[in-house]
Every structure is written in C-alpha cells, then in structure tokens.
C-alpha cells in the first residue's frame, strides 16, 4: 500500500517534471523572469559594467527576448556559464536560453539535443600574439604554447589546424576568458586562440592593446547564435523570431528612434505586420501584438546593437564584415515576416 502510494507520487512528480519542461514560454511568463545563460565575462558580448549591470551584444539579445515575452527588458536573470557548464545549464533547465557566443555545429544541434535559432554573429577562429614575437602568420607558430578555453569548438579546430599544417603545439587548457587573459599577458603562453571577435574584445581590455596583434588567418567557421533546448518548438520560435525581428528591423529601417512613429502605421505592410499595427503575428507566437516592437525598442535593431557593443566606435572596434546586411554585402538576412 505504502509503496503504491509512494510510486504514485513519484510517477505524478515525473509527469509534473515532464509537463514543466514542455512549455518554456509559459514557465518564463509565470516566473516573470527570463533566465539567460551568458559568458562569465567577455567585453562587448556579455560582461557586467562598473555598476554591475550586464552589458553586451549577447546581453541585448536576452533583453530583447525578455522585452518581447515579458514586456520588460530588465526582467532577465543573467547566469554566467563557462564553456564547460553552458550546455549542462541549458539541458537541465537552469537557463531558458543561451546567448553565449556559442558555435552552431552538427553534433551540438543533433546529438546534444539543442536548437540553434539563428546566427547573430558570423565569426571565425583566429590567433592573437604579442607583437614582439615577430610572428606575422599562424603558419609560423610551430612549437608555440597556446592558451585555449576548454570545452569549446576552438579546442578541436586548433588540433585540426596544427595537424593539417604538420606543426606541433603545447596546449594550455583554461576555463574562462579572464584566466586566459592573465596567462597570456604573463607570457605563460605565446598565443591565445578563440573566435576573432573574442580576441578583439579581449585585446580591447588590455592596458596596451597595440602591443598585440591578431594574425590574419581565420582557421574555422564559427557561426555564433542563441540556442534553446530541442523539443520545445514554441519557445524556439519565439527566440528565433525575436532575433529575426532585430535583423528585419535594420533591413526595414526600424530604429529605436523612429519606432514609436512607425508603429502608428505606415504604408509599408511588412513594417505594419512586425510592429503589430496590422495584428495577427503576436497571437500566432503566443505573445501579444506588441512583441516585436518592444524587442526592437529595447536596444534598437541589429545594427544598433552591433554598433553599440562591438562596432567601430567602441573600444573593440569590429567592422560589420560578414555581419553586414545582405543588401550591403554581408550575410545577415531575415526570412520575411509574412
């Protein structure tokens, strides 16, 4: 008798657990807070500023999703994750989404059971060395000591690159970007390798950034983007279309400055559909009609977010490059809102 009751409770607990993981959108709405996994600190992408407020490119994505779903871009709980802990954090439900410059790969998508909702930054792996080393190409790095964040795709690319070029290296595995920075500046490794955006961001925080160079070689494709757990298509759709709205916003010229005016109605039907002046899309997504308007209003469109966190006017100083809109020779392209 006792056991059956107990097993009954256990079974219902399991069912409840199953039900809880079914609707992330409802969970987020109920909690009134979006739990967003970010890096432990990478300037430009996600790092707390001097007031302890998280700032950065990935952070703005979290805020845009929170604005769309909860109506308030500040209702985000940022969960710092390392390269090692991020997937476990997402799979276990500790975070609702990851915006943690994570590379979209086959095995992560298929085998680790995640859904990448898009690519918000087209990146590639590069190498940074001190200028005084006198190295001008990655091909000259035979025998070098390389600092590398463990648990990342860069670790595997590095092994492949040195093998393909018949070179040897000494890996120094490191847990976070901050540790890597300390090791690299102390000269404990000759080279630091990670995504080129990360290298630029890290270099910008150095006391003397000009003493270091990022080598020209790009040894891999690193499409970075937000991801969610597989099997919750509704939630994946929400995050995917919030990202798309940011890109489409730039494409259509919707900025944080003119969004109020445009939402009063324009003669461009697509703008009207996105901003909810012409209703319908919000309901399909399980949100209200103002979702995309709030998402874009939170931090601006894709171009504004890029310029504010990574662009040429910031210390990180990245050019748009591949991340320019498709109309300007880049790869950023949103499926139509139709």
């Amino acid at each position, binding site marked *: 008798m*006792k*056991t059956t009751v*107990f*097993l009954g409770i*256990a*079974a219902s*607990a*399991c069912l409840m*657990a*199953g039900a809880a*993981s079914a609707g992330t959108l409802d969970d987020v709405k109920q909690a009134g807070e979006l739990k967003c996994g970010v890096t432990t600190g990478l300037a430009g992408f996600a790092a707390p500023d001097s007031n302890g407020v998280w700032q950065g490119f990935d952070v703005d994505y979290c805020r845009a999703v929170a604005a769309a779903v909860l109506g308030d871009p500040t209702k985000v709980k940022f969960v710092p994750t390392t*390269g*090692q802990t991020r*997937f*476990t954090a997402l*799979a276990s439900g500790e975070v609702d989404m990851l915006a943690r410059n994570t590379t979209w790969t086959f*095995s*992560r998508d298929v*085998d*680790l*059971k995640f859904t990448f909702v898009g690519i918000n930054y087209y990146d590639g792996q590069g190498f940074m060395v001190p200028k005084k*080393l006198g190295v001008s190409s990655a091909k000259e*790095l*035979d*025998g*070098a*000591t390389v600092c590398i964040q*463990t*648990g990342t795709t860069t*670790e*595997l690319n*590095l*092994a*492949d690159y040195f*093998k393909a070029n018949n070179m040897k*290296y*000494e*890996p*120094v*595995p*490191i*847990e976070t970007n901050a540790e890597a920075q*300390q*090791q690299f500046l*102390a*000269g*404990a*490794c*000759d080279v630091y390798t990670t995504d080129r955006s990360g290298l630029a961001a890290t270099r910008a925080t150095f006391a003397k950034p000009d003493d270091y160079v990022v080598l020209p070689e790009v040894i891999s494709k690193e499409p970075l983007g937000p991801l969610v*757990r*597989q*099997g919750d298509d509704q939630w994946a759709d929400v995050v995917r279309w919030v990202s798309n709205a940011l890109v489409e916003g730039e494409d259509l010229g919707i900025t944080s400055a003119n969004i109020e005016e445009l939402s009063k109605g324009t003669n461009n039907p697509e703008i009207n559909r996105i901003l909810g002046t012409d209703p319908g899309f919000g309901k399909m997504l399980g949100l209200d009609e103002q979702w995309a308007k709030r998402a874009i209003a939170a931090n601006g469109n894709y171009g504004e977010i890029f310029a504010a966190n990574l662009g040429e006017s910031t210390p990180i100083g990245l050019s748009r490059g591949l991340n320019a809109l498709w109309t300007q020779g880049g790869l950023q392209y949103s499926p139509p809102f139709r």
Partner: protein
Amino acid sequence: MADVTTPPKDVFRLSMLIYDTRYRSLTIQAIFMILLMAGAAWLVDNTIHNLHALGKDFNYSFLWSRAGYDINQHFIEYNNDDTHGRAMLVGLMNTLFIALISCALATVFGVVAGVLRLSNNWIVRKLMSIYIEAFRNIPLLIWILVIFAVMTEAMPAPSAFRGENPTSSMWFGAVAVTNRGVYFPEPLFSRSLGNIDLGIFYVSTDLIAILIVLAASIYAYRRLGRHAEKVQNATGVRPVTWWKSALILIAPVLVLLIALGFHLGYPALKGFNFQGGIQARNSLIALWLALSIYTGAFIAEIVRAGIQAISRGQSEAAFALGLRPSRTMNLVILPQALRVIIPPMISEYLNITKNTSLAIAVGYMDLRATLGGITLNQTGRELEAMLLMMGIYLAISLIISGVMNLYNRSVKLKER
C-alpha cells in the same frame, strides 16, 4: 490468583509490530528498507524518464569515438586521433601520478613538521606551529592558485633566456625555470633495448632492466647484512661491510647504465619554447606543492598525536639504556607511534587523491579535466561521464584504502 498465572495466549496481532519490542526493530528496518529501495527506484525512474524527455539515451559508445583534442601531459602515447577512452586513460594516469607524488611529498613534510613540532628548540617548534596553522586553515584551492600565480607571474618567459646577454640563465646549465614550467635534463640511452608493446601502452625495456638489477642488488645487500649479523652474534665482532655494500648497490647499476649508453638530454631553447628534456609544467608543480604542503600540515598533526600517544616511560627507558635521541626516535618511538598514525593517514591519502580533481583550476589535465571536462562537453554525455568518473575515483580510493589497511595490519601491535 489463578487468572494471573494464566500464560498470555500467543496470538499475533498487527499492532504488535509496533508495540512489541520483539518485532519493533524488525518493523522499523523493513519500513526503512522499503523507503530506501523506493527512493532508489524513484531516482532511477526519474533519470530514465528525464533522459527520455530530453530524447537522450544511455550508452558508452562515445568512449570509442575520436577525441579530437590534445592533452599536453601524457605518459602514454596519445594524439588527437585517439579515442575518448584513451584520453580518459591519459587523464587517469595523470591523476594517479599527481596523487602518488603528492602523497610522497606530503608524508615527508608531515613527518618532518610533526616531529619538529615536538622539538626542544623554541624557534623550530613555533615555526612548525605557524606552518601547520597557516596551511591547514586556508582552503586548498587558494594555495593551488597562489602557487600557480607565483610560478606564471614571477618566473621569466623562455624568451628571457635568448640572445647574447640573456636576462635569465639556466641553473647549472641544465635546469631552466620558466613561467611555463621547469625543464630538466632527461635520461637517454644511446644503445636502448627498445620498448615492449603491452597493447595499451609501451614499457621501456631499459627501465625494466634497471629495476631488475636494482632489486637484485638490494637483495644481495640484505643478504650481506644478515651475514654480518650472524658473524657478529657468533664472534661479537661485526665485520666491516660498508665498502662491500656500496659496491653491491652501485656497481651493477652503473655497469648497466654504461652498457646502455646512458647520457643526459639537456633542454635547449628552440623556437618558442625549450625543447628536449623533461618539462614539469606549472600546473603540475603548483598542484603538487599545494597538495603536499596543505595535506602535510594535517599529517604533521597526526604524527605529533601518534608520538605523544607513546608513554613518556618508553623514551625514558630508552635514554636510560644509553640510546641517543635520534635512535630513540627511530627505534623506540616511531615504530610504536606508527600504529596510531597509520589509520588516520589513510584518510589523508584518500583526501589527496580526491583533491587532485581541483586540477582543472590550473589546467592540469587529470581525469576530471579529460573525461569529466572536455570529453563530457564535446560529447554531451554528462550522466555517463559523471557516473564513470565517480566509479573510477571510488575504485582508486578503495584500492588505496585496501593497500593501506594491509600495511596497517603488518605494523600493528602483535598480540600473543
């Protein structure tokens, strides 16, 4: 009166399970057992259910797929084309290695500090107290990070050894201390006997030959000692053996080394780093020193307790017989103290072994960093990797404690 003496009927009622002391303990045990089993069943069921909900299965086939990452310190042949299973093995050997050398050094630190803490010299005694209290009261991880930071920040980079007028130079022209680790000369054999392939790894025949010769020498040395004792017992005069024992111990190994063409390979600065020689990486050194010094402080207290457990009469008796203090310690006190010291020592060795898993903090590639770190991350097999890792640590700990218990049995007081 008659009804009082009537024996109670032996009827079993359900309430007796609780109110009758004959059954109560059984009832409680049964209920507890059922709860325990149900708890276990729930855990397993929950796991299966949630794995299913995530669309994941449970299998270890990833251990046979290509690892794709490199490991800087490997005692067996390894490159990124090898399997995750082999990477795990490399990590396991790194774990065992650091545990072994840390246990050894911690024992040295502990015994020395423990004995010196009882010294009659005030300064020595107080210095040891400071060492013990400082090191065992600050978390181990902080010591590891501190030593690692000192090694990387304070030591010169390899490039400082370069040029006409280098700012740093090697010790004795053979040992280079850099911010990437310490480079030692390595033993090389120009007429090497080659390696034996054991399937999983290679074993150097040279090493085996040296070990065999060394074992034979020690056996012969023991025989010599026993012979000298016999002569001493018979005639009262101990024959002079020191040159014979020196010859027996050193000459055969020396001859073998010359025959194998033994020479040292010195590290030399080439390209970015020192090449050749043996590199003890900073991560290894930081972990080794921190583990040893930290655990040494605990062992010192165990040793002190063991020594103080021996009654004062023992040392007084030894002094009365005319034994010098050092011999009193070695022959009278320590052998008796050992039986008090060894049981808690086992726990300290187990602690060291388990604490090696802090290695990831400084990037030492132990079992936690390979199987529980990179492999887990690249394959996404959290449950499998964690369970396997737990099993391995458990097995290592049980083996250590088993071996130490055997040793304990051999030194404990033999009661007749």
